[in-house]
């Protein structure tokens, strides 16, 4: 019995002694762990810069605009991969943002109570599928479907646009963008949905009382109230899309040039690192890949900072927009 033990002065003195050590010990240990987390992020920046240094000194800042990746002549540039990253993530963002808003409207305003939770859980489950499996599916199922159905349809409808010119292909920017859309939609949705749920019921009821239809209520109350949250969530999804290496490497085809046609094969920064780092025989090849990694890191950090800023300037200062997995439950 604790109380009995404490009435014994010897035991109580020992307990006080332990307590004098226990508190600072726990504080120190946990502080150390926090310092370790800070050290890891600093270490990442240092180590990647260190590995990239030969390429940084050799190519300088011009690396970013050089449209070449040639292991034979040892001339490397990031332009094709920055282009690929921007194009694939951009398309994914354009598709995922409206989809996520629509799904969130369904989940918060339309779905019957019995359906709401199961559907929300299934959408979250989509986010749990490992990217390598999505990539495998992309190679063997989505790719052929894009080649046989989607891309010919786009070509016949919009073939006059340069982005839909050329021959349909199972691998390429568009297939990669579709895989990224599938990856980030559930992530963006889980945050958007959460933001929608914070809209005060009185505002919604007020709108209905004025005679608004459901859509008018959403357009005039829910969307303006959630604007910062939606933009923040979308940009976080963008961050995830920019950094995805494996699934993109599997379906984008690995071409190292810039191509206007979305059907064409290409590569992204992350995919290029995943595809070439292991082999990379050239003296400057690994450093150049690390240089790509550094640019990619800069992209992700900037995107994360922007997402944060937008949310902090919006109305939802207290809403935590980083989707820790538990929030979606």
């Amino acid at each position, binding site marked *: 019995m604790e109380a009995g033990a404490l009435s014994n002065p010897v035991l109580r003195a020992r307990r006080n002694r332990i307590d004098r050590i226990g508190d600072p010990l726990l504080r120190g240990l946990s502080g150390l762990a926090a310092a370790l987390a800070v050290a890891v992020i600093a270490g990442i920046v240092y180590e990647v810069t260190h590995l990239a240094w030969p390429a940084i000194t050799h190519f300088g800042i011009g690396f970013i605009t050089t449209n070449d990746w040639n292991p034979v002549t040892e001339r490397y540039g990031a332009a094709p991969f920055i282009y690929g990253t921007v194009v694939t993530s951009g398309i994914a963002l354009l598709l995922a943002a409206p989809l996520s808003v629509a799904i969130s409207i369904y989940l918060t305003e339309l779905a019957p109570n019995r359906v709401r939770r199961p559907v929300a859980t299934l959408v979250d489950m989509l986010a*749990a599928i490992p990217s390598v499996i999505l990539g495998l599916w992309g190679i063997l199922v989505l790719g052929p479907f894009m080649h046989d159905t989607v891309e010919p349809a786009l070509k016949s409808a919009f073939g006059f646009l340069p982005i839909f010119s050329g021959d349909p292909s199972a691998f390429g920017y568009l297939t990669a963008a579709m895989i990224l859309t599938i990856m980030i939609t559930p992530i963006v949705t889980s945050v958007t949905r959460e933001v929608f749920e914070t809209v005060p019921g009185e505002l919604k009821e007020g709108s209905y009382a004025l005679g608004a239809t459901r859509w008018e209520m959403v357009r005039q109350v829910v969307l303006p109230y959630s604007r910062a949250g939606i933009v923040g969530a979308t940009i976080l999804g963008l961050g995830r899309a920019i950094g995805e290496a494996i699934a993109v490497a599997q379906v984008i085809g690995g071409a190292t040039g810039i191509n206007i046609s979305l059907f064409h094969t290409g590569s992204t920064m992350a995919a290029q690192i*995943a595809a070439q780092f292991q082999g990379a025989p050239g003296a400057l090849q690994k450093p150049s890949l690390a240089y790509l990694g550094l640019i990619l890191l800069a992209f992700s950090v900037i995107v994360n900072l922007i997402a944060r800023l937008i949310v902090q300037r919006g109305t939802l200062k207290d809403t935590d927009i980083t989707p820790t997995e538990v929030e979606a439950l």
Partner: protein
Amino acid sequence: MSNHALLLDRGNLKRRNRVNRAVEVVSTVAALLAVAVLLIVVGSVVSKGIGALSIHFLTTPAGLFGDTSGGISNAIAGTAIIVGLAALMAIPVGLLVAIFTSEFASDRVAHPVRFVLDLLNGVPTIVTGIFVYGLIVVPQKHQSGYAGAVALAIVMLPIVARTAQEVLALVPGTLKEAAYALGIARWRTLLRVTLPTAAGGLLTGALLAVARVAGETAPLILVCSIFGQGVLTEPSEALSSIPVFIFQSSESPSPEAHTQAWAAALILIAFVLVLNVVARAFYSRSRKRMGA
């Protein structure tokens, strides 16, 4: 908010209802589409993988490159070791970080720490791979299971820490105050009151983090993907893993290798989804317990 629009639109109820109906249909279709994609992906994995799944596949190590008569026992063992080691590193550290920010640190310190965790969460995992390559593989001059485990631990750390922070914040302050009022020291309160109350939620975070890194491929490609034959269990050597097996088989042109990739994907997806379901069950139980 332009509420005047409501008044102006008043006369056109039919059109407004039509627009409303259209949006409702689009939203419902979007939700169905997301669910359909999940079912199609999982359905593809199950239908294409189940045929190749056998006791032989699960208990035989992979053959030499191009030989598809083997199985994935070495990959299963490797994933278990790498993910297990990563969890051993990331879960205690992540929990301690959360304890620091929620119990000890002032707001002025806790905010930057949370910010760093967010940044870490946003670091592309392939970049984490480059970091561990420079940190461990270059000095050791060879890949290793330890390198893979460290990389996965770095991916896990922010997930564990952020979920733990959230769960600790749910523990009712009154419980802790009751303990303090009895003169119980802070660390005892934490170990005997706060952590047991939050246990279910903490377990959820840990399980979700494990589920997340079990399928993580990018860093392993860089630091733990060139391994020997047979079932290896020594983490100082490079180990096979299920995601790397799927990746390498998926890049092969042979249909037999693809079938093997589907079967391995079935094992992985089953593991990840079951972990997710279990974690959710724990979480809802624990929320009820904390009265949230």
